[in-house]
């Protein structure tokens, strides 16, 4: 299979996956959403009319007035296209087309810190914060992990290897958000070093904002790194140990190349494809933030936005966030696949 065709098939598959994900999201929240929207319209029409006492006075009887109100509501509903059920192909088609061209519309309830209810504004405000926290945490984790993994692969069975493996196994079974609670308990309340809420109190326009944000970021960052790097080190170590058992390494050993050089120059190069795959996936995974971790630390990122949107059933935000997350995820799978193919040509020829 040629590389072009390979990329094309992957891209088409991913597009299909993206569409299916969207469709599932819409169908899960659609019915609730219609109800909420219709109630919103009713409320809006009634409050408009009650603000204008003249309208009510111009009707002779209450029934006539009620009929007028109902007509107004129905007209507005059909203007918005809500008279058709959410699952009508037309409405789903329009919704999906709009999302494809990144037109997410306005949020129903949530607003951005700057007061805009445009979903795009909200997401553009939250995404950088998630990138700041989780992506930097992921990078730190992977750097420590690769280094520590390589070191323990060099000294398999010795103390450092055993400590790393044990730490990896133990740390991976603690939920990050629980460690977060403990960290808040210890470092925010018992010893008041860091703030308990990770959202800075000052507004984003003030000069000290960046500093405040970084200071508030410290505790979540430490927590995520602490829980994350162990399993990374373990993973890298296992990749490397697997490679050092291959014949070409044995051959290099037999011609007298030192163990250290083999590990840090030959083995690590060959362990690169799987490591890069994991890195790409965890980087994209980090963009979603961890919903629960952000909830614990009250970090104003994508994860918390997602949870808030779901708890008030703000459909445009839910769909947009799902779309963005899935998009990043798929792109990173694609990139990881391509990188894997680039580093390890065997993949391209096989199925």
């Amino acid at each position, binding site marked *: 299979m040629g590389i072009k065709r390979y990329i094309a098939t992957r891209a088409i*598959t*991913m597009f*299909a*996956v*993206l569409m*299916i*994900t969207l469709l*599932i*999201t819409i169908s*899960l*929240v659609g019915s*609730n959403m219609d109800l909420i929207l219709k109630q919103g319209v009713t409320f809006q029409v009634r409050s408009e009319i009650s603000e204008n006492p003249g309208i009510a006075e111009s009707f002779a009887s209450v029934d006539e007035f009620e009929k007028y109100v109902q007509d107004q509501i129905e007209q507005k509903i059909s203007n918005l296209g809500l008279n058709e059920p959410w699952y009508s192909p037309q409405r789903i088609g329009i919704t999906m087309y709009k999302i494809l061209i990144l037109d997410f519309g306005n949020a129903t309830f949530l607003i951005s810190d700057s007061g805009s209810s445009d979903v795009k504004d909200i997401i553009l405000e939250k995404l950088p914060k998630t990138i700041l926290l989780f992506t930097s945490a992921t990078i730190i984790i992977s750097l420590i992990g690769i280094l520590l993994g390589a070191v323990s692969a060099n000294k*398999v*069975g010795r103390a450092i290897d055993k400590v790393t493996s044990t730490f990896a*196994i*133990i740390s*991976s*079974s*603690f*939920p990050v*958000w*629980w*460690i977060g*609670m*403990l960290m*808040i*308990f210890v470092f*925010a*309340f*018992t010893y008041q070093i860091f703030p*308990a809420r990770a959202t800075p109190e000052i507004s984003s326009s003030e000069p000290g904002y960046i500093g405040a944000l970084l200071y508030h970021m410290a505790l979540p960052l430490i927590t995520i790194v602490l829980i994350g790097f162990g399993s990374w080190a373990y993973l890298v170590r*296992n990749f490397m*140990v*697997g490679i050092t*058992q291959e014949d070409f390494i044995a051959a290099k050993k037999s011609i007298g190349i030192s163990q250290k050089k083999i590990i840090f120059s030959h083995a690590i190069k060959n362990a690169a494809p799987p490591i890069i795959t994991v890195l790409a996936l965890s980087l994209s995974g980090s963009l*979603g933030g961890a*919903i*629960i971790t952000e*909830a*614990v630390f009250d970090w104003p990122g994508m994860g918390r936005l*997602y*949870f808030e949107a*779901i*708890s008030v*059933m703000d459909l445009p935000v*839910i769909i947009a*966030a*799902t779309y963005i*997350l*899935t998009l990043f*995820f*798929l792109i990173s*799978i694609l990139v990881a696949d391509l990188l894997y193919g680039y580093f390890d040509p065997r993949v391209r020829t096989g*199925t």
Partner: protein
Amino acid sequence: MSSENFSEIRNQFISNKMGMTGIGILAVLVSISIYSIVSVPPETFQEWNNPGSWILYPKSAVPSWVNYFSTEKISEHKILDNPSISKDSNNELFLNSHQFALNFNYDTFPNDFIYIFSTKYQNAPLVELSVLRPDGIQLDLQRTSLPFRENDSTSEQKIFSTDYQIKKNLILQSDFFQYNIKNKSSEEIIFSQTQSDMPLKGNYVFFLNVYSVDELEIVDSKLVIGGKSYGVMGTDELRRDLAIGLVWGTPLALFIGIVVSVASVVMGLLYGVYAGFRGKKTDEVMMRFNDVIYALPALPFLIILSVTISNSIFVLIGFLMIFGWVGIAKVSRSMSLQIKTRGYVEAAKTMGQTNSKIIFKHMLPQLLPYAFASIAISVPAAITTEAGLSFLGLGDPSFPTWGQILHDASTFGAAARGLWWWILPPGIMIAVTGLAFVFIGNALDAIANPKLKR
């Protein structure tokens, strides 16, 4: 897989220290589960979220074992429900006397006390509450008659320490005390030394005497001495005994973890092996479907599902399975592609064996070690995901899970208020349970992939 192969795996597993530690922890967890199912009746845990059923318990009490480690002994919350009963009568009057012995050895005063009893009576019996202190002083606390009743009818009566009458009676007896007791609460007076307002240690006896013209029976007689420490695990802000929640969380977590992981692994294995075995178009279609599920953001979807569809624990288990089988299907498909090309599978095919027979007899057994390792490894993920959802407040309200305890802890600001006994134990339980399965899984993994051991 032949039987000697099995016993070989067993021997390898037994020689693996980590795996055996995992089995040991699991055994402890299973015995906790059995203990909780046997000894804590389901009615108790179903009452977990009903504040009315925890009214006799203290609010945010520390575990009572803390007293062993601190110099200041914090008064323990005690529910005395086993009085020694004596009855007496002369021809006109019947006396029912309930005596509660209390060994009070603490450095802080009790919070309060409540006496609760039910009785079936006629007319208006006289109720008298008094206490005999370690220093021999007898204090009269309450002397009152029950509301008049013409017919026999059962009613529950409560005497609270905050009752103004008790305070009044104590002030009448203030001669016993050498300091001013006017501004003290009733329990502080009753449990204080005569010279100063320090707690008096020793054995107290509370007497409840009921005088009536007709013979009557006192049932459900309970004296609650309110304290600031309680039980093995303490209580939370809603007065719930955390030990019950923690103990009941164990079978629930094991149930969720094991059901989800076994079901996902079986599903994934069958799916993957079938796709790999059929190959060609079938494989292509099945794997694309697999890709779709794989690309769904799992946690957001779980949240949407539990908000929109149901937050029942059984529905949640189903949802967790939907996201659980995907990775296993991928791996087992690629493994089955390798196995397919082996001679004996080809041979079976040429001999004309049915597809299902080839899959079940020749291919699946080869994947069993991998399957067992995956089952063990995917248990913690299921448990932490459920705990996480519960932590966000999306848990099943009819079962107390560890995640829900942590959710309540976070809602009531346990971290800010230093209620460590509310935060630490549930998380440790989650981690220890996860650890047990990770240990077992790693040991099995080392057997399935001997390369990593070296």
